[in-house]
């Protein structure tokens, strides 16, 4: 019985989320455009997560290289470390780790911010002040997350690879130019483009879920905490699901 209820609420919630996405799409191209707010959000969202994403990216690259090293030596392919690392970072680890960190940092803050705006009637106040709060708050944030995450993911890739370069040089010795030439020679269009495109979807997921959870927050401070929390959980799961879909689609399209 309780499972039936759980299943029902799952489908209800999914339906509501899709309706929210539909509302976003409808509002998205109708004027008035909140350009100033969009740029402000880009700055806030991009800038806020930069240090964290840089740091995690750097550590990922460094650690991955050091972990791979013994096995690569065992198989006698030590010289191929940069290539293996580059492919795993660019194709998978960079986009996904960046998106997850982004969900934790930005998804939760959007959920909490809009949630507290909702429960303290700030969203209503905007509406009576000649502003469409959905455009002003939701559309600007979702567009900002969608456009900022790919940029952050690219930066994270670059910093990770730099970490990998340092990792290679802890025990071995590779020149800076050799390292990068090796990477750029091995990476192809098929490695970079699908990975880049999927980060747009990750960014959209983080933004729309954070906004949905915040915008529909329950009354009380507890409701705000819940919104922030479920925004992170749901968008993290969604990132993995989208990742799974992305690999199937690129496979079908023959981008390997």
């Amino acid at each position: 019985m309780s499972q039936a209820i759980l299943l029902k609420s799952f489908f209800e919630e999914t339906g509501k989320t899709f309706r929210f996405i539909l509302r976003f799409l409808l509002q998205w191209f109708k004027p008035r455009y909140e350009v100033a707010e969009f740029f402000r959000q880009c700055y806030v969202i991009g800038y806020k997560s930069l240090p964290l994403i840089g740091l995690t990216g750097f550590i990922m690259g460094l650690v991955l290289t050091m972990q791979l090293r013994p096995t690569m030596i065992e198989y006698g392919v030590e010289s191929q470390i940069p290539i293996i690392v580059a492919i795993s970072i660019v194709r998978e680890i960079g986009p996904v780790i960046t998106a997850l960190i982004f969900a934790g940092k930005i998804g939760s803050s959007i959920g909490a911010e809009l949630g507290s705006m909702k429960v303290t009637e700030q969203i209503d106040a905007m509406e009576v002040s000649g502003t469409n709060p959905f455009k002003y708050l939701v559309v600007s944030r979702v567009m900002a997350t969608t456009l900022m995450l790919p940029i952050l993911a690219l930066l994270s890739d670059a910093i990770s690879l730099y970490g990998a370069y340092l990792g290679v040089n802890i025990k071995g010795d590779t020149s800076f130019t050799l390292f990068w030439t090796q990477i750029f020679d091995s990476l192809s269009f098929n490695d970079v483009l699908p990975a880049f495109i999927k980060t747009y979807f990750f960014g959209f997921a983080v933004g729309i879920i954070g906004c949905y959870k915040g915008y529909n927050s329950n009354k009380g401070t507890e409701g705000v905490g819940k919104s922030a929390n479920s925004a992170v959980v749901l968008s993290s799961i969604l990132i993995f699901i989208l990742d799974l879909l992305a690999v199937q689609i690129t496979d079908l399209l023959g981008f390997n």
Partner: protein
Amino acid sequence: MKLEENITLPVIAINNLSKSFGSNIVLKDFNLNLYKKQNLVVLGKSGSGKSVLIKCIIGLLKPDKGSIEVFDKNLPDLNDLELDKIRAKVGFLFQSNALYDSMTVRENLEFPLRRHWIKHNQGEVEQLVTEALNDVGLLHTIEMMPSELSGGMRKRIALARTLILKPDIILYDEPTTGLDPITGKEIIKLMIDIKKKYGTAALIISHDMNCVKMAADKIVILYEGKCYAEGTYNELTENNDPNVKQFFE
């Protein structure tokens, strides 16, 4: 008062307003008239639908049935621009103040000026902000964040933001709830001063008897979704109906 009511048209006229959420019937055939320069208090218990009523009047909630005429325009029939024009003339003081946390006091006050359909130049904006803050006696807080202010000050700033467009009607949602009695009285005095200065009509939602006694020209009791009783403060204190009496004990 009576005479004036008869010769002028109401600025807000609500007829047979009904609103429910699922099976929860909140308002049922509710009627109310608010006249020019009148302070009308709607009295009702917590959860009786007072906020729902006031949110229907400003178009934040859509009624299921009935008409809400504000300045002779029926709200449910209006498009976005027409609604915006009405909203510029109707101020709303939210129960939780609804100050924007991420903005300074100045930005909070500028927000309605910059966003409504009427455009103001920079000089006018400055002047209106200063004037509204002076009306509530808080000009010195102009560069502060809402989180740095006390509860009473936040209420005053919220009131200043409501006043900034020089509305003809102000809707107050429980203006004294959550404040200590002394601060509450100051807010009521401020509301009365504002009425004198600008000649606004006010619909005040409350269950604070101090507020009712000091500010009300007329009182409407909201009970079970209906307008249960109405009259002046003195008239209602003499009413022996237990549902009316409970407020005046």
